[in-house]
């Protein structure tokens, strides 16, 4: 609106404030914003002038897809590894898993993302004589699911590795604790085979803290993948966040903050539902 030291017409400011509805009392503005939020009317972007819901739609869908894929990658890695690590505690297998998972926590996902892209380029060059890397142009899963998967599996793995590291360590420690419980001794005294003791008697009980961690990580992925999205050139929520802050796009920033908060609330609600499913002592009425 105004450059540094530039002259701004008083009337122009007033007109602008009127257009934005900022001349109304704060309370009215707030009610207006909240009622709009309830019906998914978040106003227009101050940068592009387009409806925010429209801008958000595509990016949210992309971030959601990556978050879900990363969660799947993480769960598929974390639960078996954490379990093996716990039941073979202090063996070389346990040490290997723990090294793998501590590396996952130490390595930033964006760096891993770069390494994955470089690795793909180098290995395809070596094996097929022609370098290949995941496509940069985004393809909707509705259009071409295979192309979409080929593109998004890499960022999902890059973020899922770190995610799985946290979940592996949580699975291991929760399971170690449960394996010392009296009811596990009861299960052994019944002469059950080890697989049933672990899967039925121990794992279900140790999943509560793991589900909590998965929930928190999932919510984080929905808005926090700023750098990884840059690396893979993905137009996700994280990238939009940075852009809107840089562009002084206040309405967009405001909408994104609300969106991330909403995602945390919804994720926690889903986690609570999982609790009730895992533990019959927890009932919501």
């Amino acid at each position, binding site marked *: 609106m105004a450059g540094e030291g530039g002259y701004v017409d008083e009337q122009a400011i007033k007109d602008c404030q009127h257009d934005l509805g900022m001349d109304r009392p704060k309370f009215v503005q707030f009610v207006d914003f909240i009622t709009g939020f309830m019906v998914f009317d978040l106003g227009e972007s101050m940068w592009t002038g387009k409806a925010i819901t429209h801008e958000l739609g595509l990016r949210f869908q992309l971030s959601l897809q990556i978050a879900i894929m990363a969660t799947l990658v993480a769960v598929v890695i974390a639960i078996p590894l954490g379990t093996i690590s716990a039941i073979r505690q202090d063996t070389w297998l346990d040490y290997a898993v723990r090294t793998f998972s501590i590396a996952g926590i130490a390595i930033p996902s964006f760096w891993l993302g770069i390494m994955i892209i470089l690795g793909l380029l180098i290995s395809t060059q070596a094996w097929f004589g022609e370098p290949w890397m995941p496509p940069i142009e985004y393809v909707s899963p509705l259009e071409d699911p295979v192309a979409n998967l080929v593109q998004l599996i890499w960022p999902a793995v890059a973020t899922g590795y770190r995610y799985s590291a946290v979940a592996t360590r949580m699975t291991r420690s929760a399971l170690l604790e449960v394996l010392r*419980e*009296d*009811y596990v*001794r*009861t*299960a*052994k*005294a*019944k*002469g*059950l*085979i080890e697989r*049933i003791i672990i899967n*039925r*008697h121990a794992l*279900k*009980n140790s999943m509560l803290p793991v589900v909590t961690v998965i929930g928190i990580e999932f919510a984080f992925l929905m808005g926090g993948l700023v750098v990884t999205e840059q690396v893979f050139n993905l137009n996700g929520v994280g990238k939009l966040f940075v852009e809107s802050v840089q562009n002084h796009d206040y309405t967009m920033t405001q909408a994104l903050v609300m969106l991330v908060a909403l995602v945390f609330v919804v994720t926690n609600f889903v986690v609570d539902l999982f609790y009730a499913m*895992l*533990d*019959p*002592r927890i009932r919501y009425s």
Partner: protein
Amino acid sequence: MTELLKIQGLKTQFFTSAGTVKAVDGVTYDVEEGETVAVVGESGCGKSVTALSIMRLVAEPAGRVVDGNIMFQGTDLLQLPEEEMRKVRGNNIAMVFQEPMTSLNPVLSIGLQLTETVQQHLGVDDATARARAVELLGLVGMSDAERRLDQYPHHLSGGMRQRVMIAMALSCEPKLIIADEPTTALDVTIQAQILELMKNLTRDLGVAMIIITHNLGVVARYADRVNVMYAGKIIESGTAEDIYHNPKHPYTLALLKSVPRLDQPRGAKLDPVDGQPPDLARLDEGCSFRPRCRYADAKCGMSFPPTEHVDGIHYSACFKKDELDSPMKEAS
């Protein structure tokens, strides 16, 4: 009667940073078919570890059975491969644990926990296993068995949970049940109910039982034979009658005197066993009860007293066994 279980020279030790803990140090006793044998002693004397050693459930790698043998129906359980041992657990030898509150899995239904043992060992289908579970719950005196199967442990009281534990133990018709302080966590009226139930069921079904307890009242009423343990060793054994009326070890005598009795005046003071049980990592070659014994003299510090025959099946490991007072005279 035929011999069911024969434990000989069992030694179980825990290897800790503080040294080797001799939790069970040369325990020998046997159990005949259908009989109830009590193992008595205060906390930390090795009663439970003996039981876990029979089941081969001593927490490894810290704990290990280092010597002895456990003959069950002619086979040495300690020599069995793990997979064979697994088939014995729950099937031939079942266990009832001390804490019904924590010994049942909180997230699994009573039905699942009751049926899984039968399904594991007998390979029956779901319907048969469920019918068996209903039958078992009836056997342990739980009403409304069908509905109970879909409940979870937190729906049941302590006494009810222990009934479920007993039903679980009985499910494969084992030859032997090891009950590790089955009533310690329950209140007194429930204790009596549970003990009566176990006594009646084991008698009716012809199951032998090892009952581990620190409650001498339990022993007097329910056990055919009694082994008194102290610091990892059996220091006196005999019939309940022998132990109660003619104790030949100062520890047994002291235990008896520390129990309140209805036939004593109400004002009579209890006479507790002084001192603490010894540290099992630092035992010398003398009698382990020596520091707390009012009869001890120099000889007791020289070597551990050998187990000697008193009469019938009554044995005692005490140099002073013929110099002890009568429990009756002492108490009056």
